[in-house]
């Protein structure tokens, strides 16, 4: 099957079948990644541009490597150092990139809905690499891939997502994606960081960290987004760490073979203790590798969709 839309804007927009197909394709891509010759020709003669209005290490690099491993011409633009600093609008910037025969535009932006806004104006496929507090679809896809690789399926898994849910596009995309594939998602964080109505997105809001983690197959910590704290939603880092951190004791409430995920970058000792980060249960480093495979799969599927047109 192919993707229905030319763009990947979010997991809200994808069906369970499409998500499964991406995860399935990523298995093949992971084989490519682990082979000696990390080169395919799926994107040969194509161009992939990353446009990042916000900082990034792993998302941006994994998209860039994914496109290069698959043979595309690729380039990066960031807000600083581009005409964005001269006041060029998002739409003009996106159209300019589009007019250079770009096939895929991968964008990260601080405003929710920014990729949805530009996508209809562009011939290029738009991939959302994180928009404001809305979605980060490829992160959730790689999280789901990591869990599927470990457990063989997602259906019936209990996944606890803990921390700053309010600001987290990762939490939103995971809540949507995991529940579409039949996993049970529990959210927990300080009440000031639980957005109203999140329980209507197919997940449950736990009333304690213990309740969220107890019997879980996977525990995901979320970064406390210090740069997004316009107003203080908790009194201090020390207090947050004491009451909301995933410690070895908390993790021991989960199933014996439970795994730990974190989208990174991690504030060690704040949302996750270093012991947990480094524990054998942690798949945090594996997530990074899977991120490349999943992004290769996304680019591959978008290209098939484009070639059909």
């Amino acid at each position: 099957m192919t993707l229905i839309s030319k763009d990947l804007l979010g997991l809200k927009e994808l069906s369970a079948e499409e998500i499964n197909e991406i995860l399935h394709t990523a298995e093949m891509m992971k084989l490519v990644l682990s082979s000696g010759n990390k080169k395919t020709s799926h994107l040969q003669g194509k161009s992939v541009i990353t446009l990042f209005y916000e900082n990034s290490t792993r998302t941006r690099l994994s998209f860039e490597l994914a496109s290069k491993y698959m043979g595309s011409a690729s380039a990066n633009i960031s807000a600083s150092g581009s005409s964005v600093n001269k006041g060029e609008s998002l739409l003009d910037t996106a159209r300019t990139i589009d007019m250079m025969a770009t096939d895929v535009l991968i964008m990260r932006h601080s405003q929710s809905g920014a990729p949805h806004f530009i996508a209809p104006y562009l011939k290029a496929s738009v991939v959302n690499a994180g928009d404001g507090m809305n979605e980060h679809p490829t992160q959730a896809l790689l999280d789901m891939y990591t869990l599927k690789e470990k457990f063989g399926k997602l259906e019936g898994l209990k996944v606890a997502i803990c921390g700053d849910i309010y600001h987290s596009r990762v939490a939103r995309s995971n809540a949507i994606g995991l529940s579409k594939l039949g996993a049970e998602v529990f959210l927990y964080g300080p009440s000031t960081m639980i957005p109203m109505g999140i329980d209507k997105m197919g997940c449950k809001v736990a009333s304690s960290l213990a309740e969220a983690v107890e019997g879980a197959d996977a525990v995901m910590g979320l970064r406390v987004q210090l740069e997004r704290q316009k107003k203080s939603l908790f009194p201090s880092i020390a207090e947050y760490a004491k009451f909301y951190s995933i410690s070895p004791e908390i993790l021991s409430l989960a199933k014996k073979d439970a795994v730990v995920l974190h989208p990174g970058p991690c504030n060690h000792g704040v949302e996750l203790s270093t012991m947990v980060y480094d524990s054998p249960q942690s798949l945090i480093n594996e997530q990074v590798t899977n991120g490349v495979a999943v992004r290769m799969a996304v680019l591959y599927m978008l290209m098939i969709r484009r070639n059909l047109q």
Partner: protein
Amino acid sequence: MKIQIKNARIMGCGEPSDFFIEDGLISKPFTSKPDIIYDVSGAALLPGLIDAHCHLRDPGFEYKEDIISGTRSAAKGGFTSVCCMPNTNPVCDNASVVSGILAKSKARGYANVFPIGAASKGLKGEELAEIGLMKEAGIVAVSDDGKPIALASQMRKVMEYSHDFNLPVLNHCEDPSLGDGAMNEGEISTQMGLGGIPTLSENIMISRDLLIAEYLNLPVHICHVSNKVGIQLIREAKARGIKVTTETCPHYFVLNETSCLGFDTNAKMNPPLRKEEDRLAVIEGLRDGTIDIIVTDHAPHHVDDKNIEFSLAANGIVGFETAFSLGYTYLVRTGIMDLDQLIRCMSALPSKILSLGRGTLKIGAPADISCFDLETPYTFDKNSMMSKSRNTPYDGYTLYGKCKLTITGGKTTYEELC
């Protein structure tokens, strides 16, 4: 100058008859030859609509709208009088800006323009504006609309001082400490990852203003009420004898927050579109009279201010050219209210609240009238608008109640009779 309007159904009922205007006033039937004859073919002839809350953007934001384009748009929607909010540049917080607006509208406008003066200098909510001098220049009310009067002490002063000049105070109710989001707070804002504006932010300030009004025994007018609890607060306050009046806009009884899905900036306004239960409560508030009047909050914005990222986009939509049709289509045709009640909400009562002395078809009154075809459905086309701006969510809507003729003070300001 004599005008005879033939085949008009006066107030929308009865058999078609003729209506007479002489020298700018509604007149008794005359037998002498009129200068102009209009045949409106059975259209409803109503008192000219009065909008107690709009933004003409002039002076300062003429790229969005100006007094001429704004009043032409108003006339096309059947409005004969509009009250414009003071958030212009410079702010309408002194007599000279008031005089400028009045001079331009009298010379070149297509509707009676009644300026609303700022309650505070520069809309900053700190010091009283020159309310008395602005009253002499012609304001009909005071408001810091667009911004709330954040400090309770300032709101008290504004109400006390404005009362000395018999000016109503219109407050945009929003506690700024609770309301810095981009749409209604709830599951949709959470789903879309947008900051929310809770109904709590609106209702805390409504409650505060009701308490101040009760304490001082002075009137207050609550702008654009949008939600169920806010309406209930006002309903209870009226029952308690508090001198409160309130308004809502067509978008609060036609649309709900789901219009924001897909990040459509033409669904972005403040107060934001609320939940369906709030929309139904607005309809009930209009039906039982808790909500006194319907205003447009006509808020023209250039495409450059709207066709951008949702959270950064300007708030508001244009409203003159759809307000009556939306009221007629969604309130009268659905049987929620009769035509008389809609006309009261859009003409007689706004006139009463702002003491404009209009909104009537009595002989001798200023000849402000508009005629609407109530029978023929039409498709609303945003490109047909007289406004400079195109920020409307109603493009393509099938509506009833198209304006065919507007006469303001005996002067034809809009006509589309074939």
